């Protein structure tokens, strides 16, 4: 990798300040990649702008010197979207972390792109409100990153994805312009809604510098159930039963192996001793005692039908949190096995059949690999994780998983599902995009990118090649 030229270095320093430009190996490791460990970070430099104006100056500089830019948020992404492995300049938004203009009437608040998701959640709670997008990495991920991946998480069945909470955003495009899109309006049918294109664009259209986020009322007295089920089909029957009668906040599932891993490695307590193949975690509000009575009645029904073998319910907030950890700690727990991750989805009704097919392929292909299943299931999304045996070299493991991925994605294609339900495409899923998007769709995406980023400097090589 060629070292940065003195001219460019001083030009970058002129944009953001001398002490906000880094070219050392430690910074490259830190800022040059997300949670994935497939690519070796090799940026030209890392810069930390402190304002939208500085971001614009950086983009103009990049245009003048033909530099590629990689927007970098909390770097918790799972698709190598925020990876700079090709001499790019990493633009880390960490310093744009102001929360301002809280408006209780509009129920909105303005956030810098670098505001940490958990910071927004805490801010909302302090005002007696609630920011509902939540997942295990929300302590590190940023609003700009959440918007750029249209992050989902554990409350999607009730509250939707990040998209549903973006009332407006500001983006610096690939030509250096600052667009102020939608400005917090609920109703705005004056032409195309460009904001929606930016959401989920993984930094390929420009750099999000600010967003106006919506807030909700806080949920009332949440209760968490963890139910054991004999098979995946039963999980779906439980989902149908509960969703038919109650407004669930969350419906997650995980496999026995996933549970075993978190219990051993996080020192958590098993919910109950009765053995089960899969577990469903449900969360719901208790407006009155009737809600819990309803949940109990449905439980009895599920037990009678043979869909549920045992179950527990939280008796306190602390227990609700401990039960959630059984699900939320899975990703982190299994990261020591550098798992091969698939984040796939189909429509909810087709999940059982879809899963059975995927499972058949996977278990036939990896008889000796450990497979950990978990996911948001209530929205049709499952995470399939293949753990790398300690003795197998990484390259060989990647190659074998890559082969089987194709078979999995062929099933996804037949079910008209998605090869990336919520993690985005980045570098990791780029080769498989055609399994869920038609050639025409991908071609139109390229054309849209050209409109925002005519020179192709914004996160090039991510999602698709030009």
């Amino acid at each position, binding site marked *: 990798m060629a070292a940065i030229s003195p001219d460019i270095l001083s030009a970058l320093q002129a944009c953001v300040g001398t002490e906000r430009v880094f070219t050392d190996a430690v910074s490259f490791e830190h800022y040059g990649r997300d949670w994935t460990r497939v690519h070796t970070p090799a940026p030209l430099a890392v810069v930390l702008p402190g304002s939208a104006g500085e971001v614009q100056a950086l983009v103009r500089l990049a245009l003048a010197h033909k530099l590629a830019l990689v927007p970098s948020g909390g770097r918790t992404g799972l698709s190598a979207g925020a990876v700079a492995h090709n001499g790019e300049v990493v633009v880390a938004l960490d310093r744009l972390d102001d929360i301002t203009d809280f408006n209780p009437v509009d129920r909105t608040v303005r956030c810098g792109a670098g505001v940490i998701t958990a910071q927004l959640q805490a801010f909302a709670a302090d005002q007696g409100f609630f920011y509902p997008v939540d997942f295990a990495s929300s302590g590190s991920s940023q609003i700009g990153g959440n918007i750029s991946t249209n992050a989902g998480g554990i409350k999607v069945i009730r509250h939707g994805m990040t998209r549903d909470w973006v009332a407006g955003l500001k983006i610096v495009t690939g030509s250096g312009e600052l667009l102020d899109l939608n400005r917090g309006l609920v109703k705005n049918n004056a032409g195309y809604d460009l904001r929606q294109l930016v959401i989920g664009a993984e930094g390929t259209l420009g750099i999000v510098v600010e967003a106006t986020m919506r807030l909700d009322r806080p949920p009332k007295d949440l209760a968490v159930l963890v139910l054991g089920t004999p098979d995946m089909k039963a999980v779906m029957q439980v989902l149908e039963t509960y969703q038919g009668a109650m407004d669930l906040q969350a419906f997650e599932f995980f496999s026995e192996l996933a549970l075993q891993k978190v219990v051993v490695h996080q020192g958590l307590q098993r919910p109950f001793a009765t053995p089960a193949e899969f577990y469903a975690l449900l969360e719901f509000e208790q407006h009155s005692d009737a809600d819990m009575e309803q949940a109990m009645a449905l439980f009895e029904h599920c037990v009678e039908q043979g869909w549920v073998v045992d*179950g*527990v*319910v939280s*008796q306190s907030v*602390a227990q609700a949190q401990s039960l959630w950890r059984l699900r939320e700690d899975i990703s982190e727990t299994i990261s020591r096995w550098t798992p091969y991750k698939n984040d796939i989805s189909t429509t909810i009704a087709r999940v059982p059949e879809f899963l059975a097919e995927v499972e058949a392929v996977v278990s036939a292909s990896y008889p000796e690999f450990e497979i950990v299943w978990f996911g948001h299931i209530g929205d049709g999304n499952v995470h399939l994780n293949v753990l790398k045996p300690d003795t197998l070299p990484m390259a060989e493991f990647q190659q074998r998983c890559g082969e089987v991925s194709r078979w999995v994605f062929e099933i996804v294609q037949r079910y008209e599902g998605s090869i990336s339900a919520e993690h985005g495409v980045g570098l990791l899923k780029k080769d498989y995009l055609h399994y869920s998007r038609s050639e025409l769709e991908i071609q139109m995406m390229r054309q849209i990118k050209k409109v925002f980023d005519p020179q192709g400097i914004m996160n090039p090589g991510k999602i698709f090649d030009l």
Partner: protein
Amino acid sequence: MKVLVAVKRVVDYNVKVRAKGDGTDVDLNNVKMAINPFCEIAVEEAVRLKEAGVATEVIAVSVGAKPCQEQIRTALALGADRGIHVEAEGRLEPLVIAKLLKGVVDKEEPQLVILGKQSIDGDNNQTGQMLGALANMPQGTFASEIKVEGDKLNVIREVDGGLQTLSLSLPAIVTTDLRLNEPRYASLPNIMKAKKKQLDVYTPEDLGVSVTSHVSQLKVEPPAERKAGIKVEDVAQLVDKLKNEAKVIS
């Protein structure tokens, strides 16, 4: 062996409590309530004694207004065999609760009474000890391990800088510390069974106790708001501020 466990209904440990606007009390309106965490540990220990074949019956008792039957039901779901609710309104001070519990002890004659070492709302750390005095029973407070051996109860206590092992003659009183055990979750089938378990309700009069108050609460106020932090420019400025403003180093 019959075991009596006390369970108290308190504000959920994870809820941020707020003082009422007039400062007379904590605002409990619409606040989530739960079993006092130390009482939960007490229930767990009693149920484990039953599962180990040491205890023959576990009775959960709670003193307070009607809603504390919810916490008794939770104890029943966790494995207690039956419940006793001593229905009494208002702010009950530890001595009154200890007297009411003494009344229940006289009725039930348990060999072992397990209580939490304190409740997280009042932070009194008195009820177990007062009950010990009233019932004339030996007590092992802050227990981190208990074991029944014949007609003795060995209690390991967490004391400053180490552990102390006591041997108590039964019947005895134990108050629980955090490390005694990790309470289980309430299973749904057991919650349903718990609905059918016996729950007797007594009044203070039934137990021959008059509820009188010797202490009145004058004021409740939140802790002083923390001042906002500041950002320092560099290490030198940090050292300077620690030395000259905070005066925590010299």
